[in-house]
């Protein structure tokens, strides 16, 4: 009972925070933070749960944004449908990448995905595709349109709530995936792939599905960002963006559900805050990252969760009571 009450309290608090936040913080920054958080969660689904390191996730994020931009601008598609198109395009690209890369392990996999994502970057930059991507100018002035034909997204606050809702649903979906039997198999693969194979699991197929899912959610994040800012630019496809999402996940805490969200909020916060005070943001983020690696390797949230679990375990042993409670929004320890 106590646990469910705490869960309820947590949900209410988070809901209230999402609803009230735009009245205190500029919604543009919040939308960006949400998109980055979702992107990091999608990445974490792959690295944190399946133990597969991709260094080319910007390809999916950027493709989602460009596909959204193309159908929303050239074909005036309804925004939700356009977001779906962005997501599906990214998923298909993920399938193509996955089929090429999935047999590789570790650093090999990371390098293949990096190479493929660079390929996508240069395709977007060069003719003939640049007539759709507008090269280094980027696709600008994407109309936000009417959501489902009824809700006018011209108003930034409305767009904020729509994006917040989609991001929350997507993160809940990711939570559902990692807590399902499928997620358990992914964890087993992460811990010991040979053993998972010996238990009869077709590990490559599982990894491929995880990769495609991760690509789809990354594309969704990219499409939402394009919806929020009304442009799709090359920076979203560049390897910097691939690096940033790794950083975000590591900073928050790999293999935890809330970690990447926390990382996304933190990184966007630093970036936005340093804009107007002219602090070199990249340097600040770099220093934080070094501190993180030296002091708390599980990430900021990951470390907290880890210590909390250790404490709970101790208390439990003291009381010798078998009921354990895990916080509502995390799963497993850090890998």
């Amino acid at each position, binding site marked *: 009972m106590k646990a469910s009450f705490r869960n309820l309290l947590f949900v209410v608090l988070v809901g209230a925070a999402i609803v009230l936040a735009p009245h205190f913080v*500029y919604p*543009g*920054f919040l939308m*960006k933070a949400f998109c980055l958080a979702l992107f990091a969660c999608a990445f974490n689904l792959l690295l944190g749960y399946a133990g597969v390191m991709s260094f080319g996730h910007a390809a999916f994020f950027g493709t989602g944004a460009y596909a959204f931009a193309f159908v929303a601008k050239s074909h005036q598609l309804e925004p939700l449908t356009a977001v779906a198109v962005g997501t599906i395009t990214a998923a298909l690209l993920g399938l193509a990448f996955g089929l090429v890369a999935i047999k590789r392990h570790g650093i090999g996999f990371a390098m293949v995905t990096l190479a493929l994502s660079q390929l996508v970057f*240069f395709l977007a*930059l*060069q*003719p003939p595709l*640049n007539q759709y991507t*507008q*090269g*280094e*100018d*980027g696709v*600008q*002035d994407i109309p936000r349109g009417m959501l489902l034909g009824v809700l006018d997204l011209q108003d*930034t606050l409305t767009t904020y709530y729509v994006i917040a809702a989609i991001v929350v649903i997507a993160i809940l979906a990711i939570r559902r995936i990692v807590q399902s039997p499928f997620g358990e198999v992914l964890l087993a693969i992460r811990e010991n792939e040979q053993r998972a194979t010996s238990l009869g699991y077709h590990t490559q197929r599982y990894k491929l599905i995880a990769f495609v899912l991760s690509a789809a959610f990354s594309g969704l994040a990219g499409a939402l*960002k394009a919806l929020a*800012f*009304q*442009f799709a*630019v*090359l*920076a979203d496809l560049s390897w910097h963006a691939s690096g940033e999402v790794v950083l975000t996940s590591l900073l928050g805490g790999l293999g935890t559900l809330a970690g990447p969200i926390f990382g996304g909020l933190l990184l966007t916060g630093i*970036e*936005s805050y*340093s*804009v*107007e005070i*002219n*602090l*070199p*943001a*990249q*340097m600040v983020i770099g220093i934080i990252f070094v501190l993180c690696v030296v002091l708390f390797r599980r990430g900021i949230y990951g470390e907290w969760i880890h210590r909390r679990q250790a404490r709970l375990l101790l208390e439990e042993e003291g009381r010798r009571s078998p009921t354990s409670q895990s916080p509502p929004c995390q799963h497993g320890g850090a890998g």
Partner: protein
Amino acid sequence: MKRTFAAIGVSMLASVAAAQSAAPFTIGIITDMSGTYSAITGKGSIEAAKMAIDDFGGKVLNRPVDIITADHQNKSDIAGAVARKWLEEGTVQALAEGTNSATTAAALAAAKAKNRVMLVTSAGSPIFTNEQCSDSGVHFGYDTNAVARTIVGPLVKQGKDTWYFVTADYAGGHALQSSIVPLVEKMKGKVVGSVLHPFQATDFSSYLLQAQASKAKVIVAANAGKDTINTMKQAAEFQVGQDGKQAMATSLLFLSDIKAMGLPIAQKLYAATPFYWDMNEATRTFARRFQQRTGFAPEMTHAASYSGVLHYLKAVQASGSVDARAVTQKMKELPVNDFWNSNVRVRADGRVLHNFYLVQVKTPAESKSQFDLLKVLSEVPGGDAFPSIAEGKCAAAKDGK
């Protein structure tokens, strides 16, 4: 008692009124303070804008003029979000700079949405006075159309009538080449060949040797930034363009690029610019003031920042408005006059018709001081440097608005 209250009331009202009239008139500069473009924009543009405000007298519409700045870290989303935030909160009355074309476009979109002016002073893309032209955007300084026209005309007239292109294989490189080729052909010149190199390549030797073998009189490095620097370094190694028969040219060149290459490598390179600090007494005086503040010589983008802010303030004063349409209309009516421009016109599409100059990098022997880097060879008047409105893609200006 009543009188005291009344007096207090009046004085409070007066102070409120005074506070309101003294509320600063703020221009928001969105630029790159720490990244790739910080040398050609960043701090220099901010100082140039401050100099313009000082020269204007520091006040417009009885309000002190102020500047706030943001470092967009070369990310469009940051540029766009900051611009929108400032404009929605009413913090700024106008935007300036933008740096590269993607970040500029993001900030300009916000200015359009909020009906305020954006002074585009460093992006090289002509889209801001073509496809994306509007009441909000006024483009000061260079664009790729103007530099292409400035290089071709004077060089072909000198008899350098065969051209070869070493082009960066991305949209910008292709656009540059396709804007130069018809100009060369129109002047009865001949393009003898071209080769594409990958964006941010490291090895240019085979491209340069092909260019050398083509015997073309002009080899154009149709690329920018690091690519141009690497092209030139390797051209110097192979002595391409140093024999007096072939010449190297590039589209646009910043003083900081020349500094990065060094004169022995960059010497004799042709380029185009609307501004060089050592053109006349007025520009030298400006450069001295600028250098005292920053420690380096002004680039064309810094001069554009000065010009833009000064002309904007004049137009605000004259029109008594901050509304985009009213101000830009006034900016188009008034000729641009400052230390650099005399009676330069702002066209209906938002293009400021600066005069352009064909320049050549000095040899180490010719250079007398740290920033003595360029020779000005010939001048192309603003009307000829830019394609006409009829040739352009600005629908609003074509309609003769």
